[in-house]
C-alpha cells in the first residue's frame, strides 16, 4: 500500500508544475517539502535503519551550502559547485564518522549535537565563509522557469534519496544495517566491521544532505551560519522521520511532506509560534505515536521504543 502511495506522490510531484493555474507559492512550498524529504530520508538511513539517531545532520547541509556559495562566488557554475558540495559533505562525514560512530546510544546522539554547534561556530569565524554575516549567492532571474527548475532540482534529489533508501531495503548492505540496529554485539561477532558499515551509510546520508544544502544556497540567495547549520531543522528532520515512521522507506517521505505542510500553515497564521507548536508536537508524537504513521499501518516499521520489562 505504501509503495503505491509513493508512486502516486512521484506522479503528482512530477506533474505539479505542469498544472494550469499553478501559483509560485504552492510550487516553492512543495519544493521545500521535497528538500525536507531529502533531509528526513537521509537522516533515517543512520537514524532509523541503523539505530544511530543524530541531532547533527545539518552539519552536512551547512558544509554543502557553504561549498556551493563559496565556489559560485569565485565564478564556478552551479552544477560543478554542487558536485563539489556533495564531495565536501561526503568527505566531512567520513572524517567525522570514524570517531563519532564508535560512540553508542545517547553518547553518539548528544555528540552530534555538539558537532553541529562546533561547525556552526567555525563557519561563523572563518573569513572564507564571510563570518557571522554570511554569504550571498549569484542572483538568478526570478522567473517561472527558474522556479520550475529549482522545483525539479529538489524533486529529483528527493527521488534519488528515496530510491537509495528503497534500494538499501533489499540488498545485503541494508541487511547489515538492520543487523547493527538490532544487536551490534552480535553483528560484530558475525564478523561485520560495524564501524565501516556505519560510516559508509552515514556518508551516503551526508552526501544527499550536502547536495540539498548546495541547492538551497543557490535557491535561497543568502546563507549564514544560523540558517544552514540550523538547530531547529536538525530536530525537525528527526521528527519528520518519526512522525512518518522511522526505519521505513515511505515514513520519512510522508512525515516530511505532512509536517512541512503544517509548518507552512502555522507560519502563515501564527508566525513565530510554529516552533512552540513543533516542540509540543514532538512530545505528543513520542508519547502517543512512537511508531509513526507507517508504523501504525504496517508491521514493517521498527519501533525505536522497545518496551522495557515492566518497571514496577
Amino acid at each position, binding site marked *: 500500500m505504501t509503495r503505491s502511495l509513493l508512486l502516486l506522490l512521484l506522479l503528482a510531484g512530477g506533474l505539479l508544475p505542469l498544472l494550469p493555474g499553478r501559483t509560485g507559492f504552492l510550487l516553492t512550498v512543495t519544493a521545500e517539502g521535497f528538500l525536507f524529504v531529502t533531509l528526513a530520508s537521509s537522516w533515517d538511513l543512520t537514524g532509523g535503519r541503523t539505530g544511530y539517531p543524530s541531532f547533527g545532520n545539518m552539519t552536512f547541509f551547512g558544509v554543502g551550502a557553504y561549498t556551493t556559495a563559496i565556489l559560485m562566488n569565485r565564478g564556478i557554475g552551479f552544477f560543478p559547485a554542487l558536485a563539489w558540495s556533495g564531495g565536501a559533505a561526503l568527505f566531512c562525514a567520513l572524517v567525522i564518522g570514524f570517531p563519532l560512530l564508535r560512540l553508542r546510544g*545517547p553518547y553518539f546522539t548528544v555528540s552530534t549535537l555538539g558537532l553541529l554547534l*562546533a561547525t556552526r561556530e567555525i563557519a561563523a569565524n572563518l573569513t572564507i565563509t564571510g563570518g557571522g554575516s554570511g554569504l550571498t549567492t549569484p542572483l538568478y532571474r526570478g522567473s517561472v522557469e527558474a522556479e520550475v527548475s529549482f522545483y525539479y532540482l529538489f524533486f529529483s534529489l528527493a527521488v534519488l534519496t528515496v530510491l537509495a533508501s528503497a534500494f538499501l531495503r533489499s540488498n545485503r548492505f541494508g541487511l547489515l544495517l538492520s543487523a547493527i540496529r538490532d544487536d551490534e554485539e552480535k553483528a560484530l561477532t558475525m564478523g561485520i566491521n560495524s564501524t565501516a558499515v556505519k560510516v559508509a551509510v552515514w556518508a551516503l546520508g551526508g552526501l544527499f544532505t550536502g547536495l540539498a544544502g548546495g541547492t538551497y544556497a543557490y535557491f535561497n540567495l543568502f546563507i549564514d551560519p544560523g540558517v544552514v547549520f540550523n538547530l531547529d531543522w536538525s530536530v525537525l528532520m528527526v521528527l519528520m522521520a518519526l512522525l512518518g515512521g522511522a526505519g521505513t522507506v515511505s515514513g520519512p517521505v510522508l512525515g516530511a511532506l505532512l509536517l512541512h505542510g503544517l509548518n507552512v500553515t502555522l507560519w502563515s497564521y501564527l508566525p513565530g509560534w510554529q516552533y512552540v507548536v513543533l516542540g509540543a508536537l*514532538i512530545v505528543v508524537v513520542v508519547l502517543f505515536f512512537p511508531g509513526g504513521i507507517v508504523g501504525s499501518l504496517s508491521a514493517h516499521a521498527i519501533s525505536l521504543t522497545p518496551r522495557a520489562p515492566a518497571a514496577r
Partner: protein
Amino acid sequence: MTVYLQLFIDGVLVGSVFALMAVGFSLVWGVVRIINLTQGELVMLGGFLTYWVATVLRWNPFAALPLAAALLFLLGYGIQRGILNRATHASLFMTLLITFGLSIAIRQLGIQLWTANVRTVTAPFAGVSLQVGGTVISVVKLIAFGAALLLTAATWILLTSTRIGFAIRATAQNPQAAALMGVNLSSVYAFTFGINAAVAGAAGVLISMIWPLYPHMGVPLTIRSFIIVILGGLGSIPGALLGGLTLGLVESYGAYLFGISLQEALAFGLLVLILLLRPRGLFGWGLQG
C-alpha cells in the same frame, strides 16, 4: 606567568558556576535516566528572572536566587509529573527527543515573549575587583563562586542526609528494589527533576551576573553540562564539581590560546576525545559504580 595564574583563577571561578549547572543534570541522568536537553533553557529562565528582579522590581539581583529556585522547582516538578513520567518506559533516545522538543518550545516562547535581544544584569560590585599578586579578581565572580560552592554543598547534604535524599539515592541504585521498599518512584522522579531545575535556575541567576542573557543561550550550556558529566562521572556530585572546574579551566586557557570565538568547537573536541579515550569519565566515579 601572571597571565597563566589569572587564567587559572578565571577558569576556576566560572567553572564553579558550570559545576552548579551540571550537578542537577548529572542527578537527573543518574536517577531518572533522562539526559535532559532542556538544562540550558532552565538556566536561561533563571537568568531572565534575575533580569526582571533587577530591572523591573529594582531589587538586588541576588534576591532572585530563592525566587528562581522556588519557581523553577515548580516548573521542573511539573515537567516531570506531567510529561516525562509518562515516558519512563521509552528508550533513552525518545526521552532525549522529548526534552529537545521542550527546549525548542521554551526557547521559542522566550523569543516570543522577550525578543531575541541580548540583555545584561548589572550586579552590585560590578566594577569592583581585588588585586592579588598581580592578578585581578572580579568581586562579582568571587561571590558567584562562593554561592555556587555553597549551593553544590547544599545539594550534596540534601542527597546524603535527608529522607528524600535517601529515597533518591535508593532509586538511583535500584528502582525496583526502592519501589518494593515503599518509595513512590513517580514522586521521587518529579522531586529529583524539581531539584535539578531549582539548582539550574540558581546557576542561571549567577551566570546572568557574569554573562549577557539571550533566549538562544541554552543549547551550548546543555552541551557543557553533558561534557561535565562525562568528565566527572554519572550521578556524582563531587565528579560534577571537578568536571565543572576542569571545563572552566580548559575554556579559560583555550580562549587564551585559540581565541574566544572557538569555545564551542574546543569543548566539542574535548568531548569526543574524552568519550573515546576515557569513556568512564576522567575520575571514574559515579552513583552506580
